[in-house]
C-alpha cells in the first residue's frame, strides 16, 4: 500500500540554547518497514530524537538525517511527508472527525472525490466510519487516539512517528489499542518509530527496541534480547523487575546459599548475578537451593508475588503461578535454572 522508507540518523546530537544536552551524538539505522521502539525514562532524549526525524527540531551542526538516500536535514516538517501521532492527540477541535482525517489531503489539494474516498478508507481501517461527522470533543480517549492515527496515515507518509500515543489512556484500553496498532502497522507495512516509557508496550510492539538513557543509546535489540540479555543493570531494571544476588565464584562455580551453578565461561570477572522474579522456582528442600523467610505476599491473579528475606538486605522478589497458602514467616527454598542467570559487569 504505502511505500516504506529506510531512515538513517548520522551523528545527530541536540543541545538546547540554554546549554542542556538533550541528546548525545548518536547514529541509528531504521530498516524499511520495521517498527522501531525508542524506550527510556523521561528526559532520556527519545522524544528529541523523534522530533528531529519529524523536522520539528534540528540536530546540532554536523548531524544528518536521510530518508532512503535523500538528505532531509534542512527540510522543514511541511515537506518531509511524515505522519506524526502526538501524546495529546493534537486533533483540531474546530473540525469534525472526517475533516481531521482529511486535513493533510486538503493541504495537498487532492480532488474532493479522492479525498472523500481516502478518508472513508482510513475511518474504516480504524473502525470509526460511524463517527465521521462527530466533533472531537464528543469522542472518548480511545476514539481520539484512533482518529489521530488515521489522520497521520491518510497522507501515506514515508514514516509514521508515534510519541507516547497510549500514555493518556487507562490500562485496559492501552492493552487493547496496543494490539490494534500492532495489527495496523503490520498490515500497512509502514516504517514506524514509536516512543514510549512503558516497557510492556515496547516489547509488545517493537520489532527492535532502542533503549535510551541520559541522551545515549544503551542497547539495540529484539524484545527477547533486551529482556533476557540486557546490556547493563539500567536496562535489566528498566525492562521488568530483577533481583541482584550476591555470591562467590570459585573453580568455575557460583555459590549463593546452598545453590551452586556453573559460572558462564564468557562471564566478566567479578560480574553481578541477576535473576528475574519469574525465573526463581520454589522447591521443597534446602539442598541446592537458596533459603529464606517469606516476609510478604501479594496475590496478583495470574501470579503471586512473594518477598523473601535471604539475609542480603533487600528482599528477593519471586513470582510464582502456583496456588498455595504461602504462610508468612515460613521457610522458602529458591532454585535457579542456570539458563536464566544474567551476569553483568559490576
Amino acid at each position, binding site marked *: 500500500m504505502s511505500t516504506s522508507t529506510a531512515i538513517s540518523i548520522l551523528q545527530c546530537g541536540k543541545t538546547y540554547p540554554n546549554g542542556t544536552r538533550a541528546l548525545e551524538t548518536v547514529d541509528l539505522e531504521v530498516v524499511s518497514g520495521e517498527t522501531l521502539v525508542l524506550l527510556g525514562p523521561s528526559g532520556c532524549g527519545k522524544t528529541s530524537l523523534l522530533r528531529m526525524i519529524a523536522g520539528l527540531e534540528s540536530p546540532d551542526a554536523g548531524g544528518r538525517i536521510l530518508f532512503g538516500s535523500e538528505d532531509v536535514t534542512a527540510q522543514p516538517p511541511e515537506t518531509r*511527508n511524515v505522519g506524526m501521532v502526538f501524546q495529546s492527540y*493534537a486533533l483540531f477541535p*474546530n473540525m469534525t472527525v472526517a475533516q481531521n482525517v482529511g486535513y493533510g489531503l486538503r493541504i495537498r489539494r487532492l480532488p474532493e472525490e479522492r479525498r472523500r474516498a481516502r478518508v472513508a478508507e482510513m475511518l474504516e481501517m480504524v473502525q470509526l466510519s460511524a463517527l465521521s461527522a462527530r466533533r472531537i470533543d464528543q469522542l472518548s480517549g480511545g476514539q481520539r487516539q484512533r482518529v489521530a492515527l488515521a489522520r497521520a496515515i491518510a497522507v501515506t507518509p514515508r514514516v509514521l512517528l508515534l510519541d507516547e500515543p497510549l500514555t493518556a489512556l487507562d490500562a485496559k484500553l492501552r492493552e487493547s489499542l496496543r494490539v490494534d496498532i500492532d495489527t495496523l502497522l503490520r498490515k500497512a507495512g509502514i516504517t514506524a518509530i514509536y516512543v514510549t516509557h512503558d516497557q510492556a508496550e515496547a516489547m509488545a510492539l517493537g520489532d527492535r527496541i532502542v533503549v535510551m538513557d541520559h541522551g545515549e543509546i544503551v542497547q539495540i535489540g529484539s524484545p527477547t534480547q533486551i529482556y533476557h540479555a540486557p546490556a547493563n543493570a539500567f536496562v535489566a531494571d528498566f525492562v521488568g523487575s530483577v533481583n541482584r544476588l550476591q555470591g562467590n565464584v570459585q573453580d568455575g562455580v557460583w555459590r549463593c546459599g546452598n545453590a551452586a551453578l556453573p559460572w558462564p565461561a564468557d562471564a566478566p570477572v567479578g560480574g553481578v548475578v541477576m535473576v528475574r522474579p519469574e525465573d526463581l522456582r520454589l522447591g521443597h528442600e534446602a539442598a541446592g537451593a537458596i533459603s529464606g523467610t517469606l516476609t510478604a505476599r501479594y496475590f496478583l491473579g495470574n501470579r503471586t508475588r512473594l518477598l523473601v528475606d535471604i539475609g542480603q538486605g533487600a528482599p528477593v522478589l519471586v513470582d510464582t503461578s502456583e496456588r498455595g497458602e504461602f504462610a508468612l514467616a515460613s521457610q522458602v527454598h529458591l532454585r535457579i535454572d542456570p539458563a536464566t542467570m544474567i551476569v553483568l559487569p559490576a
Partner: protein
Amino acid sequence: MSMDGRKHTLLLGALMAPAAAFFLAFWLLPMARLVGVGASGPQGMGAYWSVLTNQNYLTSLIYTFVLSALVTLATLVISCIAGLFLERNRFPGRSLLLAVLTFPLAFPGVVVGFLIILLCGRQGLIGDLTKWLTGEKLVLAYSLSGLFLGYLYFSIPRVILTVMAAAEKLDYALVEAARTLGASPLQIVRDVTLPALGPALVSSGAICFATSVGAFGTAFTLATNITVLPMLIYNEFTNYANIPVAAALSVVLGVVTWAVLALARSVAGNTVTVAA
C-alpha cells in the same frame, strides 16, 4: 454538588431573600422608570419613534454605531497581529514594551481625549510634523479621525492582552500537527490559530464595541463636530431638558449594546461579559 451542600446554600439563600428582593427592586426600578420616561413626553411613545426618524438623532445613532464597528474591526486586526507576535517571541525589552503598550489602560476617557489633542490637535505633534513637511497643518483631533484614534488608543491594550492570554492557552502541538501534515504558515493561521482565538476575539470585539459606543469622556474633551450618542443624550438631558428623548435614546443604546454582548456571549461562551 452533594444534596447536603445544596440544602445548605439554599438555606443561606432563604435567609438572604428579603435583602435580595430589596436590593433587586432598587436595581430594577430605575431601568423600568427609564423605559417609562421614554414614553412619557408630549408625544407619548412618539419619543421612541422620533429617535429613529428625526434626522439629527438618526445621524448620531448611525455615526456612533458605524464608528464603533470600525474601531472594533481595526482594533481586532492590529491587536491580533501584535498579540500573537508578543506571545510567540521572547526578546530583550519585551516586558517594557508590554508595559508601555498597556499604559493607556490607566487613563480615563477624558485624559485619552487630552492625549489625542496633544497628538493631532491645533498645536499637536502631527500638525507640527505635517506643516514642516508639506506646509499644510493636518488637524485630525476634532473630526471623526480624532475620535477613531482615541477609541483605538484605549481599545488596543485590552484586546492585545486578551489575545495574548488566549494564544498562551493554544496547544502548540496543534501547530506542529498541522506542520507535519504539510500546512504552510498562512494555512496554520487560517486553520489552527484563528479558530483557537475565535472566542477571545468575538468576546473582546463585543466589549470593544460596547465601550466605544458608550465612550463619553473622549468625545466630550475633543468637543468634536460629530455628536456621538452619549453626548447627544447628555445634551438632550442637561441642556435642553428633553428628558423623554434622552430616555428613549438611552434605551436604544442599551438595547443595541446588550444585544451585541448577548450575541457574542452565545457565540463565545460565558467569558464575554466577565471581561467587560
